[in-house]
């Protein structure tokens, strides 16, 4: 028996093993509850499919028109069909543009030429926020970012829209 060797006493040994075993048991007990709590964070967000909004491409003009449609939304165990809207038009290049009507200021709904004082602009009635036709916010009015645009696709001459994509403020 060498005196230099660090002996572990019976008491220390029991302390370590019991703490270790207890720790493992506590950890084992907590794994499932924690994994359950963070499940929404780790779930892959199903980027919703594009939806037929019932508008023929031929009917899209350079004048923005309001399109309303519904999407199928699954919220856990709760399924619903909330409505969506967009302002759809062809820009100067002939490309289809679908803008979200949700004001980037405080979330009211904007209208094309919603105010007689501001022709050729989107107008928000809540705080007089304004946007140019391409959705850029007019400086000096409340919104600080352009209107979001919907990802879109044309299938068999019919317009399909997806999720709104936010744009950074200028």
């Amino acid at each position, binding site marked *: 028996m060498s005196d230099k060797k660090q002996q572990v006493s019976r008491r220390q040994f029991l302390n370590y093993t019991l703490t270790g075993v207890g720790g493992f048991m506590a950890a084992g007990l907590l794994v499932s509850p924690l994994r359950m709590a963070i499940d*929404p964070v780790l779930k892959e967000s199903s980027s919703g499919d594009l939806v037929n909004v019932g508008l023929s491409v031929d009917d899209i003009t350079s004048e923005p028109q309001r399109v309303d449609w519904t999407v199928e939304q699954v919220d*856990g165990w*709760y399924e619903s069909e909330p409505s969506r809207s967009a302002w759809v038009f062809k820009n100067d290049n002939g490309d289809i543009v679908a803008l979200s009507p949700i004001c980037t200021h405080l979330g009211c709904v904007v209208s094309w030429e919603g105010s007689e004082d501001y022709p050729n602009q989107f107008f928000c009635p809540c705080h007089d926020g304004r946007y140019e036709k391409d959705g850029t916010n007019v400086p000096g009015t409340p919104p600080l970012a352009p209107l979001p645009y919907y990802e879109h696709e044309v299938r068999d001459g019919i317009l399909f829209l997806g999720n709104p994509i936010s744009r950074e403020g200028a």
Partner: protein
Amino acid sequence: MLQKLYDWIDDRVDITPIWRDIADHEVPEHVNPAHHFSAFVYCFGGLTFFVVVIQILSGMFLTMYYVPDIENAWKSVYYLQTEVAHGQIVRGMHHWGASVVIVMLLLHTLRVFFQGAYKKPRELNWIVGVLIFFVMLGLGFTGYLLPWDNKAYFATQVGLEIAEQVPFVGEQLKILLAGDASIVGAQTLTRFFAIHVFFLPGALFALLAIHFILIRRQGISGPL
């Protein structure tokens, strides 16, 4: 009769010292409003706790009617508010008490701050107090959603967007709170209910216990 009952228990488990430790202790003259009226400022902490007790009791009774489900939450609150005898009063206690707690808590904090009562050796209790403050704000935020009316919904929308602004983990934090990446809905309501009724009260009890034990250990800070 009561004395006999007490004696019977005390004989066996000797509860008098426990009782003495909890409730029977001297109140220094400088914190006693009977001696100096201005000492009423020392009451704010106790008043905060008093209102917290009201919140716990009224909240327990509210859950007898409330359902954390988006179809029924608002209806259950409406029923409780309009059809149940005294339901309006119990919900009123919880509703107004929530604001009174914050007011009392701020007054208590101001007293401790301006009297410098947080200084050594009581720094730790200040920290615990700040944690209690955050828990209280969390309780207010999560409780606000539960009636599931327009105000509740949009206040939560705003709150979640604020959480999203946290650097690096904001997005995950928001989903963790809302239960869904883009929807404020069924899963948000159950989560907020669980946080409001179980998680935060649990944290609150633990922190309050530490808060009070530290006060008894260190005593109330001396006169100015």
